[in-house]
């Protein structure tokens, strides 16, 4: 059993990473990665939604019939997103002002729905919960890395405004890498999202090829 848990962790974080391998959730991946802090925030909110929705779907999987499963999954995911949205607005308002606009977008992210269909609908509660957690953290890591690259090249900073997201303790993360006004603007604009994501995807492919792994098509599972 311990072996399968470490499988879940490895799959979520790297081997079957939501962005880099399954290529799901590309919309927030490109829209929300104008800075490392934004990517981190969006990733953590998505991870929370994935963990809770996977948990609920696995727990209720005996009652969800095949024919209505997709609307039920969307209902559960949307309910979790609204729950996060309302509680952040009420109790973590500073964070909400940064992320608020983007939280409703999690509903349209295919990654939570994908994990519900592929994993949580078939597996017990605990592995499903862990799958949600680590798929979510893998998603968070990808978004943070893409955000960091774009932020450094585009604005010359790293983790700007991190204290708004993580609290004043983390303001040491905020660094200026390049002098002000030297950033390449296009990298922070929408085209930069495509460029950075594409480069990171290629990098992951190169690493996989180096490691001698079989090339898989996006989203496909090895047979």
């Amino acid at each position: 059993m311990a072996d399968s848990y470490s499988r879940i962790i490895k799959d979520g974080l790297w081997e079957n990473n939501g962005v880099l391998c399954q290529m799901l959730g590309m919309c927030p991946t490109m829209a929300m990665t104008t800075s490392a802090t934004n990517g981190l925030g969006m990733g953590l909110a998505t991870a929370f939604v994935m963990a809770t929705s996977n948990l609920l779907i696995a727990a209720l999987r005996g009652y969800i019939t095949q024919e209505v499963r997709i609307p039920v999954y969307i209902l559960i995911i949307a309910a979790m997103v609204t729950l996060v949205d309302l509680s952040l607005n009420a109790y973590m308002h500073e964070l909400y002002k940064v992320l608020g606009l983007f939280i409703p977008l999690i509903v349209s992210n295919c990654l939570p729905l994908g994990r519900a269909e592929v994993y949580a609908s078939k597996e017990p509660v605990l592995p499903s919960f862990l799958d949600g957690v680590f798929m979510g953290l893998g998603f968070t890591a990808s978004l943070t890395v893409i955000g960091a690259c774009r932020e450094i090249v585009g604005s010359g900073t790293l983790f700007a405004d991190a204290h708004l997201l993580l609290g004043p303790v983390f303001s040491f993360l905020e660094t200026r890498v390049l002098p002000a006004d030297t950033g390449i603007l296009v990298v922070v604009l929408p085209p930069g999202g495509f460029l950075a994501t594409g480069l990171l995807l290629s990098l992951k492919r190169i690493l996989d090829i180096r490691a001698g792994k079989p090339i898989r098509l996006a989203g496909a599972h090895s047979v």
Partner: protein
Amino acid sequence: MNGRTLYHALVLGAFCLGFGTLLATTDLLTADEIKLRQVEDLQASLGQVIPASIHDNNPVNDAIVMKNEEGKEITIYRATRGGRVTGVAYELLGSGYGGEIRLLLGVDGDGKILGVRATEHRETPGLGDKIDVAKTDWILRFTGLSLGAPPADKWKVKKDGGQFDQFSGATITPRGVVSAIRSGLEFFAAHKTQMLEVH
């Protein structure tokens, strides 16, 4: 077949009912907190355009609603001191490069600008977003100005023959902001008596 369809419908209905109840409960629990946060936000932004020294009331609680030329309702928050209205603040809409720009304008009893801030916008990062006080202090230059100073034909960006700097690479954003502020001041001039009237 019909029996099965009914069963699926019931399953879906039950889930909707269950999660609907959960959401209704959350809404009920958080509604008051969220309302409080909104009032705090409003107070914080009003505090930026109305100096604390000119009022002894809470402008959030002294609001009147007026209609502008297009018939749109505008909420006017009033600062009073010793029962006299010393300043008002209201929201303006400008049109920028990325859509609507929301501004909050504070004006004193003589029509002089106490402060103006961009509260919501979708201008290009690094270009148009310089109107945001968090990025540059460009918007602070309006403080103390009024309709007569500079004269009306100078209430434009330099490119249009006025006196306000545009940003390199972005003219549409400052043009939208300057013209929104000018029409905001004209709105004040037209409705001054009603705004300053003590109720």
